């Protein structure tokens, strides 16, 4: 063990590894902050550069880009309501309202602290619990995934705002549009109307940009005459330690949610962020303030999506299974160097694994430093008058929608959903439920149908393991709580949380 560690230190301790890690994170933060450029793309574009690097250096570079990208997505989400990456879409909900209140710096700070903390928790889980979590992964099949996603759908109620009915309408539309494209099981076309561009379904990022950023811009022009300048709130320029302590429970909870969801193949950062957000909201006395600029909401969302960043490596390293596209690219990097992740890697190249672990542990600290520098540069965007800012954002949106798949069709999708989003905004229909349903809908459908295929049509498969029972119980619990709260919301005792909310704002 000690000998392995010292070998690992020899492998890790050289200046190129440090540069690769820091450089990777910096590239990731910047790319992640550009709407439409996802961390997946950043990692894929970096891959060819690692061909000529030593394995540890190359993989640390990719991991740096990935981690930086996951965090970087929150910057435009908070500043211009345009999530840089899908995983950051949840950070919009409270981050942008905070920025509008002149507290952009504070929101960016807490997003960074939550991200770094969650990243650290996730990295430590990877290092310490890789064996246990890998065991958990192997017991997750389609039925377990189905119950997990089914439970996750209950968060729609949390992000529906004041009207549950409007939330359901929005979610219903999201579920419906998610069915466009190829049917997974039969391979037949669904709602494509013979259009080749629709065969792959509606692309997520153009839809995301359209739904969030465009309505905001249209709305800005609809309200002409205002100077459009946000008065900076001096107390909102940075997050204090008190802020961090206030959000700590949600950050810790979000980190753990991220660790577990990250370790399960195929779930990813966006659902994790939404689950963490909804849990934070459920437990917060300031429930009513979520969606209107609640610091804890930003912290929970960012902790949720960064919490997956370390544990997503668990199935890859322990079992050789890439859980998502990013780990698939990283698997490619391993293979280019003649290394095959999996149990054998731990036996044959344990020094390399330890060297990677050392690098991964340090990455959280690098992220903090680089993120701080990025905030310093980016936060002034919040004070740019909208008449200058919006055209620039618009160009970035068009570029982002196009860049995802190099397709003009995606630009039309973005514009189309921009108009839909604008109408939804005018009719006070929340867009978050739409988004969640659009992300989770296909996962729900696929796992449901896969399960029934496995059981030859018997529904008992959804009760086959303790994991499914846990998620069923959680679902029932959260629905009961939701109904009770909804009923209570009609009675006068709702005033109580309001008082606390005002206290907090002081």
């Amino acid at each position: 063990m000690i000998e392995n560690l010292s070998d690992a230190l020899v492998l890790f301790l050289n200046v190129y590894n440090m540069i690769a890690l820091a450089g990777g994170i910096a590239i990731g933060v910047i790319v992640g902050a550009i709407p439409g450029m996802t961390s997946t793309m950043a990692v894929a574009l970096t891959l060819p550069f690692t061909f000529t690097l030593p394995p540890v250096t190359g993989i640390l570079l990719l991991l740096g880009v990935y981690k930086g990208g996951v965090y970087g997505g929150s910057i435009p989400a908070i500043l211009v309501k345009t999530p840089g990456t899908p995983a950051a879409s949840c950070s919009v909900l409270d981050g942008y309202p905070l920025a509008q209140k002149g507290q952009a710096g504070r929101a960016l700070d807490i997003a960074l602290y939550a991200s770094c903390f969650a990243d650290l928790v996730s990295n430590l889980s990877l290092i310490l619990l890789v064996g246990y979590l890998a065991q958990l992964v192997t017991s997750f099949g389609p039925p377990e995934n189905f119950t997990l996603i089914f439970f996750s759908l209950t968060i729609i109620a949390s992000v529906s705002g004041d009207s549950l009915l409007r939330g359901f309408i929005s979610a219903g539309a999201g579920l419906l549009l998610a069915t466009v494209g190829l049917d997974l099981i039969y391979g037949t076309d669904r709602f494509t109307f013979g259009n080749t561009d629709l065969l792959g379904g509606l692309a997520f990022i153009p839809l995301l940009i359209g739904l969030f950023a465009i309505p905001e811009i249209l709305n800005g022009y609809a309200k002409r005459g205002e100077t459009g300048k946000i008065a900076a709130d001096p107390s909102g320029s940075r997050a204090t330690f008190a802020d961090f302590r206030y959000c700590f429970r949600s950050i810790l909870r979000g980190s753990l949610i991220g660790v577990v969801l990250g370790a399960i193949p195929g779930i990813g950062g966006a659902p994790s962020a939404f689950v963490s957000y909804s849990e934070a909201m459920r437990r917060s006395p300031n429930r009513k303030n979520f969606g209107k600029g609640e610091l804890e909401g930003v912290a929970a969302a960012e902790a949720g999506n960064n919490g997956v960043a370390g544990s997503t490596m668990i199935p890859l390293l322990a079992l050789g299974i890439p859980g998502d596209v990013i780990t698939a690219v990283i698997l490619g990097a391993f293979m280019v160097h003649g290394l095959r992740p999996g149990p054998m890697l731990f036996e044959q190249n344990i020094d390399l694994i330890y060297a990677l672990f050392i690098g991964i542990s340090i990455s959280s600290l690098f992220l903090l430093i680089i993120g701080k520098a990025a905030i310093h540069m980016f936060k002034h965007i919040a004070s740019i008058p909208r008449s200058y800012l919006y055209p620039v954002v618009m160009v970035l949106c068009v570029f982002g929608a196009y860049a995802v798949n190099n397709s003009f069709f995606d630009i039309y999708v973005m514009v189309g959903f921009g108009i839909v989003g604008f109408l939804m905004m005018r009719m006070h229909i929340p867009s978050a439920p739409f988004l969640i349903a659009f992300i989770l809908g296909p996962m729900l459908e696929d796992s449901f149908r896969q399960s029934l295929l496995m059981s030859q049509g018997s529904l008992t498969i959804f009760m086959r393991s303790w994991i499914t029972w846990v998620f069923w119980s959680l679902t029932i619990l959260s629905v009961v709580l939701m109904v009770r709260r909804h009923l209570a919301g009609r009675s006068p005792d709702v005033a109580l949380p309001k008082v606390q909310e005002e206290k907090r704002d002081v």
Partner: protein
Amino acid sequence: MTKMKLLAGIALAAVTAMPVAAQDYPSQPVQLTAPYGPGGASDLAARNLANVAPDYLGQPVLVTNRAGAGGATGSAYVKNSDPDGYNLLLARIGSHSISPALKSSMPYEWDDFTYLSLLEINPAACATATSKPYQSLEDLRAAIEASPGAVTYSSAGVGTLHHLGGIMLLDEMGFEDPGTAATHIPFQSGGAAAAAAATGQVDFVCSNISAIISQIEGGQLRPLVVTTPERVDSLPDVPTASELGHPALEALVGWSGLVGPPGLSDETIATWVEVLQEVAADERWVNQTKSLGSVPMMLSPEETVAFVENQYTTFRGLVEELGLQID
């Protein structure tokens, strides 16, 4: 909205107005479309080629991903682009032989393209989880016979090598209706399909070896058969399909090829044949291809067409015989 249109218009004009001099090809960067997402086998094959080919082509090769619909979106895009040689495609077994054989609604046929070269092949294997009782293909066959429909196999979606591999295996085992003998369970990616098999969620998977070799070496998957004519170096104990009396399974071999839109000029084809000969001799490309688990195999344009046609015909015959066509 008008701004949008203007913007789109300017960009479009810029793209179409690029000067194209047919005489001195290539006079500008070549765009190579990978019809699957980043990190997949087609993406890696495309980037590997794009790393080396510019040295001999004299122009950069830019890889762009146009994923969707099992490779159909990106393939249709290249098929419909100008045959000026600046838009090429990294074709794969899924997009160019299985899907056209299986689906009637494809926006192209397999022979709608100008084939430049085969680049590499990916030998396949069928495997089961080590936690399952099947020690041999015969054990698996007996289990399927004992309870029709209860045995499951995973795939990376309809029209992938995994899917057709399962069907071919069942057909070869002598089951009359491979569609019902065992149950096909599609997943979103090859990784997910391999994972489902390795963790025992499904009974078996037929996949390119490179995607499951980690699980085999790690002791989670037990390979039952390889589809190569000779035994595979890294799996010396695994019998070949011919040894087990199923030579037809040898058609089950993944491949990547370089193709262009229909009607590429002879000059463009000749340029690429020359370039690819140099690439095939370049150690960087050979080593990279091997380390990704593929076998480098450059073929001439004519040989490539024959190779793909042979595979397509085999698959198409199977699809017609078993009535598997998807409308």
